[in-house]
């Protein structure tokens, strides 16, 4: 609580990492995201909350162009990362996704060994010149994800054999392995038990030092726990965005108020 003002000041002074300007997303004729303007601060956690179908996940997926895989999806407006428009025709989405990693709702490790799960990204991006460099990337990614001590003796076991929480942290380690700058998380804890959730949240808090993290969550408590800033989406509109403490104690908009206090019909 006490450090909040400091963070606010610090973030206010630095330039935002991601800035969205009048973003519109259409699924065919359905206008899914309307006029979203948001500035996301570097090295901080920004949480997107809102009822199901409010567009928070959709918007998250526009940040690394995962929506490209959906055929009828169309994005208008601009999203800039470090000032570069990611929807510029010159931008290759594959390169973008190396810079903006993603962790999904359901832990989805590849049905391969733990080692190969982490090594896959660096391999396809040519981040390691030889085996020992690759080993280093794998071990440091697992260390950053707080998983190293648990798995260092069984790196060749399948990643799908781990517990749900470990799988999710493996997915985070996999995302880290390609050294992204931004990590997007789409409800990363919705399939996990409270202890595994706590571990992931602790990890998110540690990663904040080096990465810009955007997390979509259904749990307001989680948003309150992990994020510095919170954005509330409703019916495709960004209703309110601000420091997390303000959003949860004294939201300005009635829709936010109704949502966080459990008054939505």
């Amino acid at each position, binding site marked *: 609580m006490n450090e909040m003002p400091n963070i606010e000041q610090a973030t206010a002074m630095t330039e935002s990492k991601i800035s969205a300007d009048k973003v519109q997303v259409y699924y065919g004729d359905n206008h899914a995201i309307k006029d979203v303007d948001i500035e996301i601060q570097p090295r901080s956690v920004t949480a997107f909350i809102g009822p199901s179908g409010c567009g928070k996940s959709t918007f998250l997926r526009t940040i*690394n162009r*995962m929506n490209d*895989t959906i*055929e009828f999806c169309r994005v208008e407006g601009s999203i800039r990362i470090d000032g570069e428009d990611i929807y510029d025709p010159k931008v290759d989405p*594959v*390169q973008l*996704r*190396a810079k903006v*990693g*993603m*962790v*999904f709702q*359901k832990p*989805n*490790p*590849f*049905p391969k060994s733990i080692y190969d799960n982490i090594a*896959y*990204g660096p391999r*396809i*991006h040519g981040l390691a010149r030889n085996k020992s460099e690759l080993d280093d990337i794998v071990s440091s990614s697992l260390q950053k994800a707080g998983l190293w001590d648990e798995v260092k003796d069984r790196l060749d076991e*399948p990643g*799908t054999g781990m517990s749900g929480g470990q799988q999710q942290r493996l*997915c985070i380690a*996999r*995302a880290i*392995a*390609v050294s992204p700058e931004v990590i997007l998380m789409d409800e990363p804890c919705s399939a996990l038990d409270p202890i595994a959730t706590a571990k992931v949240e602790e990890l998110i808090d540690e990663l904040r030092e080096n990465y810009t993290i955007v997390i979509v969550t259904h749990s307001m408590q989680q948003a309150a726990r992990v994020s510095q800033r919170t954005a509330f989406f409703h019916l495709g509109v960004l209703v309110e965005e601000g420091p997390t403490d303000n959003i949860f104690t004294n939201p300005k908009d009635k829709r936010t108020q109704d949502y966080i206090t459990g008054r939505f019909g």
Partner: protein
Amino acid sequence: MTDSTLTPEANDTSAKAPAPSRSLYALDDLTKKRNAAEKRFQAYGIAAILIGLLFLVVLAYSIISKGIPAFTRTVVQVEFTITQEQFDAAEKELFKTKAYERFFIGALQGQFEESGLNVPFDAKAIERIVGKTGGTIREYFRANPDKLGEPVAFELAASSRVDGYMNGRVTRETMTDSRFLQASDLDIVDALVETEVIKTVFNWNFITGADSGVDNPGGAGIGASVIGSFFMMLVVLFLSLPIGVAASIYLEEFAPQNRFTDLIEVNISNLAAVPSIVFGILGLAVFIQFMHLPQSAPLVGGLVLTLMTLPTIIISTRASLKAVPPSIRDAALGVGASKMQATFHHVLPLAMPGILTGTIIGLAQALGETAPLLLIGMVGFVARGYPDGFIAGFTEPNSAMPAQIYTWAARADFAFYEKAWGGIIVLLVFLLSMNILAIILRRRFERRW
């Protein structure tokens, strides 16, 4: 504290629905009905399975009981010695083979005397039982003059009627005297069986040999058409698998969703249901008449069957690609893999078991297909023997197992009917080994996620 907050609700619900307490031990009528319905359904299911099993048993029994005789043949085994002088004397005669036949009959006579049996027989009867033997014996000694003066054991195939008698197909009651076999000959056969001159041995020729003429069912073998089928399957596998998989991957993962791809999809589904004879006539028109590929060749047969198998492979491959959880694609794309990398590194390996299953089903269908082969001339053909080398395996005229079976079944001599059943057994064994191979491959590819 908690009680005070909870009780109002609890009171509310109990006030709304004052449920009379019912014993859990007493079954109400609805439950009884439901349980009875479930039991009935299970009984139907078991009955259905039993009926299916019964049919299977009947089928297997009839196939095996009718087909097994095709794997045996009846031979007349006699050992005798011809000296150089006897050979020279025989060579000087006008009917040389007759002279050799006399040696054979003499040796047979000797065997009878040795066993103390007294059955009268003449040369005609022997001819009816083993056919004209002189020629075979003469050929042997002309080819191997060094064997003269040594005892040589001859194993000569008995006539198909004798074969039938040994298999129980021909009996004294059913047979009518003819120039092929007379009732009295059967006594001779019985005697020969007793002296172990006539024996039933395993018919390797059936498995390894080629088809014979219409008058020689005993010499007919399925070997050449097994080779023909094998080469056809090679063509089908190496064409339909890559083409089918590539087409499915494109359609499933890359193709834009529009009218054109919809049209293609509908057409593929329809093609799977097109009768195979249509593919046959297409193959005849395109591959043989237009492209002038060799007629009756496994290459052409393979091409036609490829056309037929493709829809099956495409449909099953697409289904197994669809079954790969989208989260795996997301995961790959999320770490910055391109669409192609995601497909080939992650999706395809996971879909592999399904693709293999589909391929094997397609191949099995193709293996058993007869109709299109009729049209491209892979039927009604007496094979000269084995193809000459690997390439020739594709291009030389040959037959295929089902076509061969069809040919045999159509022939007049009842002995061929037996061969047809035997051919079915070989076909099923071929199919079974293909399936086992597929299961082994699938196990190897299968991965949990």
